[in-house]
């Protein structure tokens, strides 16, 4: 698959460009942000974490597979009570990206049932979670409505 999305998270003008790292290892920021799964070379099952053998066919050979960056909302919830430090309400969703199910937050949409709907088309985007003391920024992914 290929992604034509721009690298959307913002770096302030005139600031020296800080180093950026992905929030999770299965998010790749270059050349454009996308998710990468470990795909079983026998049956094609995809896993975002490491497996010793495929949970589906028990094969032991895996190769990296790029996940489509566009998809649709197959399920969602709007979470009003969350762990400390998590702004609420936020939308948690299950996105179907060209046959692969992905879990993520929805962003750039009002978190209420009037603005989020089952089946709505979304695409991957990224944002800066924060920077550590060394100035390294952690970049996370989310999905936004395709307007």
């Amino acid at each position, binding site marked *: 698959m290929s992604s034509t999305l721009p690298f959307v998270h913002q770096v302030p003008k005139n600031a020296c460009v800080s180093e950026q790292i992905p*929030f999770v290892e299965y998010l790749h920021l270059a050349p454009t942000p996308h998710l990468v799964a470990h795909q079983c070379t026998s049956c094609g099952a995809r896993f975002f974490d490491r497996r010793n053998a495929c949970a589906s066919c028990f094969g032991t050979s895996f190769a990296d597979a790029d996940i489509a960056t566009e998809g649709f909302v197959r399920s969602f919830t709007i979470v009003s009570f969350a762990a400390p*430090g998590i702004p609420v309400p936020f939308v948690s969703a299950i996105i179907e990206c060209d046959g692969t199910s992905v879990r993520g937050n929805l962003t750039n949409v009002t978190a209420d049932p009037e603005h989020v709907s089952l089946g709505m088309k979304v695409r991957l985007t990224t944002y800066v979670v924060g920077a550590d003391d060394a100035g390294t920024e*952690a970049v996370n992914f989310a999905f936004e409505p395709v307007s």
Partner: protein
Amino acid sequence: MSSGDVWILGINMTKFGKHTDKDTVDLAAQAAMAALADGGVTMADMGVLAAGCLMGGGGIAQMIQKQIGQTGIPAYNVSNACATGATALRVVYMSIKSGECDFGLAVGVEKLSGVGLLSGGNRKDDGKTWNRFGRYGAVASTDGRIGTDTMPGVFAQVGMEYAHKYGGADFKLFAQISEKNHAHSTLNPLAAYQKRFTLDEIMNDMMIAYPNTRAMCSANCDGGAAAVLVSDAKLKTLSLEQQRRAVKISASVLTSDPYEEACQVLPDVNTLTRSAAAQAYAKAGIGPEDLDLVELHDCFATAELVHYDNLGLCKPGEAADFFKSGATWRDGSTPVNVSGGLESKGHPIAATGIANVWEVCHHLRGEAGDRQIQGAKVGLAHVIGLGSACGIHILEKSGL
């Protein structure tokens, strides 16, 4: 000649709610002693003990023995999420089935009063520089940043996925399911909450994870439940009264989730329940249409809907219409959660998988008082532990 069947001889659940003056061992011992008394036996008769207390650390089985009788029998400590109680019951069932013993005791207990939201990883983001941890190599907790780990949120997504697939289900319908269970609870003196709510009250209650409001979530509370099981051969040597009140375990099934494409991002509570139900109906020689009552795992209102379908109570994809027909109210064709369900009876995790069997037994014995389902002969008890484990027991009234 013994049929090889296994029976429930005695069973008990404590009042669910807040027990400030009792710890988990007290509650477990109370339920166990009452179950033994209900069956007319003592610890001296027991050949096996299986017990679970999910949040309370290990060794609950031995702690129970020290509290009510140490006889040197094998003691199993079981832990299987919300299916812990059902798993304890099944361990005892299998021990008797294997011929190792004639009697066994299963116990589940939990203290959850005052425990807030149950969620997944709540790791604090400390550290001065980003450090990767966990299986996704995350630099901070993913809960809330890459979807939700909170139980109300996970099960909201389970229900919404069904709504997306089949239509017909919305916020109001999920709230109506909760309305039913709270209405049922008014007849159950052992329920943690016995308050009837209007649909408006439920929909306007505090939103936890849309479409689940607080009233649509299982109630964290304290409670214990215990069951004494007996072999068919031994039961025949007991009194006529014991034989008459004994309830046959027509099927005891435990499943885990087979691989499904999306199960790594949203636990699949459907496939393993459908599989457990199919196995249970086949073993019992009973179909869903034969069930006089069902206690199913309504940890959230959104979960109850999908299990109508998973348990085959309705045609595939027709759970919303099935509910709208009134079928699952206590005067309907398939009463579901006449105890009030986890939303009002409460959900002391490890006790739940025995307490739902107690509810069914209570009706089959004709001892359910005001909430008795008249003439009940067959019932089904279902639990799901996320991760996942599904326990189903089909129970039948004694023919005597």
